């Protein structure tokens, strides 16, 4: 009964979305305030209905209602509660429902917090937002309905893929989707601006926080996925340039560019046309990501063939939205008036450079991901584009970006002083040089690019700190005065500094672990030892045990360093009951120096186990860096200036006068 109730709520939500798609836009076109206003109520109704639908599906999972086909396919009664809940979005149908729910939440946020938006802009934004909801709502109802019943109901479900039964992964999809879908706000605002044929700084001031929020969620979502891959997959890697990873990485790159270009638009009214285009492209890449993952076209050509309807429908939705929005852009972009001019060496110039490099790297990832598919369909020839290709093309694009990054905040708007900026960064450059030389001295091996890259990470981090010191005039004025200046800096300045610091930290982690990882593959019998990066590991033996829904073999390794005990590691292999599938649980000892990482392999004929042992230096910096970027975004988001928009009020007055 509750399931039917949820199903009904979903149908109603789609109908409400149809209303919301048409009526506010008509109101904006005819200048009818009441029609425009009704969009707010529709947005709120839609989000409530979808919340009911989602709650109904969740309830079916929690009580293990095996008369629902979706629950049978993806859940099992012995599964712990948290994974019964995360199972709701751990499958195609449920995750699409989450997708539209998040979409509706963003739409409702416009209705609730958008009172300072011009009425027509708000109405048009709600309409565009609803049009996406209609497309995906119909997609769910007709090809991927999670509420379908099964008769007769089986006694138990088929279970959730055990490698997905993990805390980090339980919350990975919601964050990822919040990021993907969050970019729909930038898209809706861009389309609304094109419909109205005008755009100003207030527009950017409105779009930026939403883009920032989406970017934060996507950053954290990707980081969670990467962290999970690191400890769960058992070979110590954290990024594989897998098509599905690329699918989430492309919107992130474009979204990062959008954040920076929206800044130029807000402060200087420049780059308007480009920012609009970028907003469209970012969400298009989010749709592409959804298509690639959901259609299965990349994971397997066969998955696409098994249910072609889904892939074709999402492809259709994508073509409609991407094509339609680009067409509208082509027709109306020329009407948008350009704003402030700037010299090439200026804050704007540095942000343009940021945008160029991020766009080119995004295009590289896009083409690399889709090229094998395209080539095969055109010539029938099969090629592979894997990690070696991306490392070779992507890394050279990131280097100039990272070199330029610390200069940006030191350059003034309109016309900057590159020499002055370089002078202020002297300390950072010295620190970078010291670290690069120290890296050479410590490791004396690895690729030649690694020491400069370590230096680059430090350069970015030190540059971020120096920017704060510069703004607070630390060293030039008394400490009290400097402290007063620092505490009076807007939060967005701290947000920028912190996020950039996180980028530098991440560069350090990525470089160190890629270039200086130590790996040993050995077969150990009880009592044997192996030395890895200063640690001595003694294999004590293995034992079998039984968990709630798996059986497990656990190895025991005593770790010592210079004779002193450090820790005991318990790497294990699990075999889950439902579905029967093996997983590895790595034994990890983490320290600031890096992670000691042990994965248990197969039992050897001669006794003992095969083991892969890694030492991954500074690997934690990767995820700590991502977390710091997330926090930086959050601090920037809490800046009052992002919420209170004086130009917005001015525009409303003007419109009131015109009416």
């Amino acid at each position, binding site marked *: 009964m509750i399931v039917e109730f949820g199903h009904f709520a979903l149908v109603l939500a789609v109908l409400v979305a149809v209303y919301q798609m048409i009526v506010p836009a008509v109101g904006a076109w005819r200048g009818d305030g009441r029609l425009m206003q009704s969009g707010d109520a529709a947005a709120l109704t839609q989000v409530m209905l979808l919340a009911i639908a989602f709650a109904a599906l969740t309830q079916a999972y929690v009580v293990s209602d095996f008369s629902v086909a979706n629950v049978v396919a993806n859940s099992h009664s012995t599964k712990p509660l948290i994974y019964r809940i995360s199972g709701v979005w*751990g*499958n*195609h149908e449920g995750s699409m429902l989450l997708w539209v729910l998040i979409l509706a939440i963003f739409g409702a946020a416009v209705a609730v917090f958008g009172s300072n938006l011009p009425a027509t802009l708000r109405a048009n934004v709600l309409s565009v937002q609803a049009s996406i909801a209609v497309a995906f709502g119909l997609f769910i109802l007709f090809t991927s309905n999670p509420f379908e019943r099964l008769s007769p109901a089986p006694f138990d479900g088929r279970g959730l*893929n055990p*490698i*997905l039964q993990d805390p980090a992964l339980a919350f990975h999809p919601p964050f*990822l989707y919040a990021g993907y879908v969050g970019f729909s706000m930038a898209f809706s605002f861009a389309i609304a601006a094109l419909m109205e044929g005008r755009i100003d700084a207030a527009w950017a001031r409105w779009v930026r926080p939403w883009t920032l929020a989406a970017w934060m969620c996507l950053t954290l979502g990707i980081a969670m*996925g990467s962290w999970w*891959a690191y400890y*769960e*997959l*058992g*070979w110590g890697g954290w990024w*594989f340039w*897998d*098509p*599905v990873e690329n699918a989430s990485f492309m919107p992130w790159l474009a979204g990062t560019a959008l954040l920076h270009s929206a800044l130029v638009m807000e402060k200087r009214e420049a780059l308007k046309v480009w920012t609009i285009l970028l907003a469209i492209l970012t969400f298009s890449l989010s749709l592409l990501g959804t298509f690639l*993952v*959901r259609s*299965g076209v990349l*994971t*397997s050509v066969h*998955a696409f063939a098994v249910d072609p309807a889904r892939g074709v429908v999402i492809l259709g939705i994508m073509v409609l939205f991407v094509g339609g929005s680009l067409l509208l852009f082509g027709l109306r972009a020329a009407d948008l*008036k*350009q*704003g402030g*001019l700037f010299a090439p060496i200026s804050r704007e110039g540095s942000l343009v450079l940021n945008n*160029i490099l991020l766009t*080119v790297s995004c*295009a*590289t990832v896009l*083409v*690399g991901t889709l*090229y094998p598919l395209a080539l095969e369909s055109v010539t029938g*020839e*099969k*090629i*592979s*584009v*894997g*990690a070696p*290709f991306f490392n070779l*093309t992507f890394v*050279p*694009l990131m280097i100039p970006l990272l070199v330029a990054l610390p200069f940006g905040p030191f350059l003034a708007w309109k016309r900057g002083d590159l020499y002055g900026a370089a002078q202020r960064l002297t300390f950072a450059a010295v620190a970078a040089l010291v670290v690069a030389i120290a890296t050479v001295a410590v490791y004396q091996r690895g690729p030649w690019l690694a020491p400069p890259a370590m230096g680059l990470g430090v350069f970015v981090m030190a540059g971020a700190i120096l920017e704060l010191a510069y703004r607070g005039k630390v060293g030039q004025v008394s400490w009290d005065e400097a402290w007063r200046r620092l505490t009076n800096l807007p939060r967005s300045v701290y947000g920028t500094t912190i996020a950039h610091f996180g980028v530098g930290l991440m560069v350090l982690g990525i470089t160190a672990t890629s270039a200086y990882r130590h790996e040993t*593959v*050995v*077969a150990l019998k009880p009592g044997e030892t192996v030395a890895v990066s200063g640690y001595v590991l003694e294999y004590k033996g293995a034992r079998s045990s039984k968990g709630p829904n798996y059986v497990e073999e656990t190895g025991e390794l005593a770790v010592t360093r210079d004779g002193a005990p450090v820790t005991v590691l318990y790497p294990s*292999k699990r*075999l889950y009951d439902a*579905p*029967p*599938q*093996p997983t*590895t649980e790595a034994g990890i000892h983490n320290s600031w120096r890096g992670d000691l990482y042990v994965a*248990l*392999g*197969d039992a050897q004929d001669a006794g003992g186990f*095969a083991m*892969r042992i890694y030492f991954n230096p500074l690997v934690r910096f990767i995820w700590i860096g991502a977390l710091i970027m997330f926090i930086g975004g959050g601090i920037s988001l809490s800046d009052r200036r992002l919420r209170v928009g004086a130009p917005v009020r001015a525009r409303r007055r003007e419109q009131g006068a015109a009416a």
Partner: protein
Amino acid sequence: MTGWQKRRGPVAGVATALALMVLASPSAFALDPREQLKDTKLEERARGLSAELRCLVCQNQSIDDSDAPLAKDLRRLVRERLVLGESDAEVKTHIVARYGDFVLLKPPFNMHTLLLWMTPLLVLLATLAGLWWAYARRRTGSAGPAGGAALSGDEQRRLEDLLRDR
């Protein structure tokens, strides 16, 4: 075939969960200690080569990471050729002759992959050209001397009205 499900990104893991249930069989990981060469220099080269060769029956996974039987055979083949004294390039040529370009995770540079390899450069040039074009248009175009946008006819009239009211 069990190696590849580990390698999927998490979301793909969700998408392919059903397929995996059929394919999964209890096994662990790729490189077996017994496969390793005694000569550490050669073994290092073998690992490097393995990371650039695709496990043909897996999804976007190198033979270094895969525990599929085919990957195991390929790893053995790589090591055999290295022991024979072949260079890295010769080993690759040998394996490509058998399995085609598909086996290379870094595709070769030829007419069919020209566009792929040139993408970064082409997009970079396109963005720079677009930038130059926009800049040139701005300098010669409609922008007023102060850089402010010109007023539309309507706006001009309203401005005049306002000034007259004063």
